[in-house]
């Protein structure tokens, strides 16, 4: 075999770079189980250690950012789950595993590992991103409630809703929230939400085993929750015990009652706000009415009969109207004695000059239109 030096000669860096690329491109981030030995903490804060089992060893590196989150460096012989990705450290020509998370197996059951796996997968898909959190609508009226049919959660939500926004409709999608089949039922319920034309969806868990959040940590449930087309509120975990669904939901509530409080505005507050706006609307008309009256006054004696109400009363009447909003309509204003004069073309006659002696015009009063004519002096 002869070697041609004129072609296909790579530098060391080129070869190392190519291998690194191959390695990183073909092995995705992964969980690895093994025993830690020789963990060394550098002054930079990075950890270097070896992860091994009976047949092989991996040189591992955990950057400071990740190491800080992992707490204390593990003692020799500690069995751990490590999440990371393989790479080639070109400077030393060394195959390395870059660890991002490390969990001692002793402290974790299989369930916890599953949870970590799901969490990592959901995080990778951006399901926990603050940027995808939707805002709750201000005044929802139809809300889907996914919870167990017999649970206290529904009762609490109904009680709060009745007090805050009694005109609401709660559409209850019953689902088991723990035990076998709970995850499947939750997914089915979440998928029905988009057919209900609701404004918000609450997923609540009342009573039951405080610790059994398994269904709400299920990947399928989390993904179905993320796909609900309207903003979601979770009331699942407890202060100290947050489920992955709580992290996926747009808003997290501490309890089912709190979820209803977050979802619904207080109708009494909104009524006061409407009352206030109505009062302002009435007063704004009061000023308009004065203007109207002034203009009509200038238009001449003929119109006096149509303007018996004096200027000063407009404001106080308007104030009273604020309290009685039904009375607010232009017709009622005309009923108070104002009139609008319009020419044959429908144009409002505002000035004396608009009234040509001999010309027809119409006076719009409360109960109809009065055909009129400007007297020829």
């Amino acid at each position, binding site marked *: 075999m002869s070697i041609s030096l004129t072609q296909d000669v790579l530098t060391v860096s080129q070869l190392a770079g190519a291998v690194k690329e191959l390695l990183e491109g073909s092995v995705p981030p992964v969980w690895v189980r093994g025993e830690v030995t020789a963990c060394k903490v550098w002054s930079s804060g990075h950890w270097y250690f070896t992860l091994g089992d009976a047949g092989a060893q991996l040189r591992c590196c955990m950057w400071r950012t990740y190491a800080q989150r992992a707490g204390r460096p593990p003692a020799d012989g500690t069995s751990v789950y490590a999440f990371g990705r393989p790479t080639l450290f070109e400077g030393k020509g060394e195959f390395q595993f870059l660890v991002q998370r490390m969990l001692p197996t002793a402290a974790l059951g299989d369930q916890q590992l599953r949870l970590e796996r799901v969490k990592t997968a959901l995080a990778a898909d951006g399901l926990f991103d603050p940027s995808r959190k939707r805002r709750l609508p201000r005044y929802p009226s139809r809300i889907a409630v996914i919870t167990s049919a017999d649970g206290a959660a529904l009762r609490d939500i109904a009680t709060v809703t*009745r007090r805050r926004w009694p*005109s609401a409709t709660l559409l*209850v999608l019953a689902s088991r929230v723990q035990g076998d089949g709970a995850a499947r039922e939750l997914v089915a319920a979440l998928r029905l939400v988009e057919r209900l034309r609701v404004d918000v969806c609450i997923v609540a868990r009342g009573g039951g085993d405080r610790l059994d959040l398994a269904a709400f940590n299920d990947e399928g449930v989390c993904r179905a929750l993320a796909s609900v087309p309207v903003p979601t509120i979770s009331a699942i975990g407890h202060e100290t015990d947050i489920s992955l669904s709580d992290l996926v939901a747009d808003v997290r509530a501490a309890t089912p009652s709190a979820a209803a409080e977050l979802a619904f505005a207080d109708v009494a507050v909104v*009524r006061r706000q409407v009352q206030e*706006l109505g009062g302002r609307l009435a007063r704004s008309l009061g*000023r308009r009415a004065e203007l109207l009256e002034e203009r009509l006054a200038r238009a001449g004696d003929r119109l006096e009969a149509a303007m018996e109400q004096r200027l000063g009363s407009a404001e106080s009447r308007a104030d009273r109207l604020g309290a009685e909003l039904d009375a607010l309509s232009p017709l009622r204003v005309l009923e108070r004695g104002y009139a609008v004069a319009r020419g044959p073309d429908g144009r409002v006659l505002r000035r004396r000059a608009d009234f040509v002696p001999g010309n027809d015009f119409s006076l719009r009063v409360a109960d109809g239109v009065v055909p009129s004519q400007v007297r020829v002096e």
Partner: protein
Amino acid sequence: MNSPPERIPAAARSLADELDRLEQIVRALEADDLDLDAALALFEDGVACLRAARERLAVAQLRVRSVLEDADGTLRDTPLDA
């Protein structure tokens, strides 16, 4: 007895829309720089918003309904005691 099916007014403005519009109208009227025709038209619009908002805030009974999907995929809702 079954209560009547839910009615969803098509393309209806939401309460938030009504209140925003009302607020805008009141501000415009308070600014006092509109001509009379425009002001009256706006006022009328404001009264309509006000009425619509009040209707939405009218006293009503909370409805709690249980939704089930039939075998054929149809959704049915029935009153629920809660």
